[in-house]
């Protein structure tokens, strides 16, 4: 079995600053790390590898320093690492990213299962997984919280949709996006991490995938959405209104109004 895990390098989110004067996000000050959800995706793959002897490839699109994220994945059990890196891919939104990743997946070759994290902590859209499946024209299951069974020819997963939990059994190929509940990623051993620092990361440029995707479908040109404006929301400033016990009836009335105003109650 061949599993491809999609990895994204993200800034350490609690360190990302917003410069409200210049109106732009300052990612410089933050360190980078593997998107936490992607570690769950990788752990899922490693779990399957331990049971069935699958081969794991990890794939990321990003700047050259995203190699570090891929090496982290190798330390944790991936066999091959691919970095999709080219000026042409810059400025990609989720559609262009997914189109590029799908083309890279087809270039890497035969695969049975693609695993991605539920979403990235910096983009927060949860779109790249399902969109990559669409470009590959395969089935996907999102919000997978458990692998119920994994066989050579089929896989049964648990997912939460429609306010309920469902089990779905698919044949391959399939793409799944996993939630944090699916596992606790194990730490790499220091020795594996040392070794992985020297691991080879195969570089894929636009030239390598050009048979699978058009130039106007990747990067900035392939991105239909753009940020028109950024607004910094006003700091929450609260004016406290305190009611005494004697005034409680008016407090109830106020809270009820609030519930209706906030759309939290049928009026």
């Amino acid at each position, binding site marked *: 079995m061949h599993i491809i895990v999609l990895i994204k390098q993200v800034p*350490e989110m*609690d*360190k990302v*600053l917003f410069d409200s004067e210049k109106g732009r996000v300052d990612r410089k*000050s*933050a*360190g980078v*790390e*593997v998107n*936490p959800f992607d*570690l769950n995706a990788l752990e899922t793959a490693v779990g399957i590898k331990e049971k069935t002897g699958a081969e794991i490839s990890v794939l990321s699109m990003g700047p050259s320093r995203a190699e570090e994220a891929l090496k*982290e994945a190798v330390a944790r059990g991936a066999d091959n690492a691919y970095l999709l890196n080219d000026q042409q891919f810059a400025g990609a939104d989720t559609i262009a990213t997914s189109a590029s990743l799908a083309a890279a997946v087809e270039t890497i070759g035969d695969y049975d299962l693609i695993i991605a994290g539920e979403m990235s902590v910096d983009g927060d859209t949860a779109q790249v997984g399902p969109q990559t499946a669409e470009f590959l024209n395969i089935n996907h299951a999102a919000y997978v919280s458990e692998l119920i069974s994994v066989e050579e020819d089929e896989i049964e997963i648990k997912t939460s949709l429609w306010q309920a939990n469902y089990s779905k059994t698919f044949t391959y190929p399939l793409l799944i996006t996993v939630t944090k509940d699916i596992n*606790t*990623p*194990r*730490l*790499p*051993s*220091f*020795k594996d*991490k*040392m070794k992985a*620092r020297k691991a080879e990361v195969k570089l894929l440029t636009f030239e390598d995938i050009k048979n699978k995707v058009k130039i106007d479908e990747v990067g900035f040109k392939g991105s239909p959405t753009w940020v028109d404006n950024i607004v910094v929301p006003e700091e929450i400033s609260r004016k406290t209104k305190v009611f005494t016990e004697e005034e409680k009836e008016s407090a109830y009335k106020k809270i009820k109004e609030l519930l209706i105003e906030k759309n939290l109650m049928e009026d």
Partner: protein
Amino acid sequence: MEIPSLTTMITINIFEKTIRFDVTSNYIGGKIMKKEVINDLIKIVGDKWVDQNPERVLSYSRESTNDNYSLVAPEPIAGSVVVKAADAEDISQILKYANQKKINVIARGAGTALSANTIPAQESIILSLERLNKILELDEENMLLKCEAAVSLGDLNERLKSNDHLYFPLHPGDEGAQVGGMAAMNAGGVRAVKHGIMRNQVLGMEVVLPTGEIVNYGGSEGKLLKNNAGYDLMQLMIGSEGTLGIITQVCLKLYPEPKANGTLIVAFDSREDAFASVPAILKKGIIPMALEYVEKDEIELAAADIGKKWPAQNGKYFLMIMLAEAEEDDLFEIGAQIDQITAEHNAVDMLIAQTSAERKAILDIRSHILPAISDKIIDSPDVTVPRSKLCEYLNILNELEEKYNTRCPVVAHAGDGNLHVIILKEDGSKPDYYESLKKDIYQNAVDIGGTITGEHGVGEMRLEYLKMMYSERELEIMEKIKDAFDPNDILNSGKSIIRK
């Protein structure tokens, strides 16, 4: 004063004093604060900030100590009043008043101390500092942060997040701990190996003396790195456990934030191997942020309790080593050295966490050990020995375990030689050998050059053991120092030092 329920309260009038007993709880009945005192306090801080509600007074009278050491921590005496001062001026007036009326005053922060340092042993004014919660200044030039006493460690760290290169290293486990309390207690905690304990972080402070004067230490701005003028009263104040003055502001040292962080978990099959690695690592000139020792049963319980998983699967005894270096290459070079040293001491596994979430998860699990096992323990003396004697002390502990036929799990700030030896309950209650075992734990530490407490302080729970450490003359000097600051003994009386 409100009476919560007449059926549970017995009120007795003896002489002119009213004594009330609440027969439904352990809360020990005592005198009521006189009406006149309450009125005078209201005149100082305002009606809203004086609270006599018995339930709330009780909750301000307890510490985490009461939860963690329910069988050995003293129960608070009733009849106290909670006063919430706005600033040093308020506190000054309250202390002047307390001197005049000879009423005990206890400064109260987050209540995360573990030695009954702020549990009232008499009717007291519990002076809550919670309104002093402002961060006053982030001074990047001088690399320091000035704030009021009740700013919590969590608030402080939150504020520093928006600064991309400065951080404050100390982490005593509970992020609710407040900086004033941390200074008063000379807190230590996990990340003290590299930068030291609270004593090394405070550059200046504003203090209200027990006699009511407001003073500044560390120069008028509290920003001095060196100050050799006269006795260092600021250092005396640090660790005085609220007996010499009330700290209202502190100025804390900040450090440039290291770029390459990694937490190593080294697993061993024996305690001896784990402990023997500690001096071996430090001897090489490696200075980690933290060098902690934990054991499998406790760390796994702590992890499960907060819904996490302890990452190591092999081994039963672990060193948790937090490294903070300038470059990633340095991190791995040092890691490789540690790998080699610990391999010589039979380490069975070594893992590395680099992502911030994974490093935080490990620290969170470590910080949660005591709360997680609080229902299983009686006490956890935090003795400290010279680092080179960790193994020797461990052998003593093995003998003690044998002598008392029990198990004493150990959690240790191993890099500081600071151990928390855990005395477990037996069948849910205090074992009959408790006093004797505890005394052995302390005495043996002192005998090999150690101390009875490395960070939690004396409070009320360790008073009787001070004599193991100090001669009559030394204790007398401490008493005279207390008298010099607090002639009427109104500030946290009966805590921290022995009085004749």
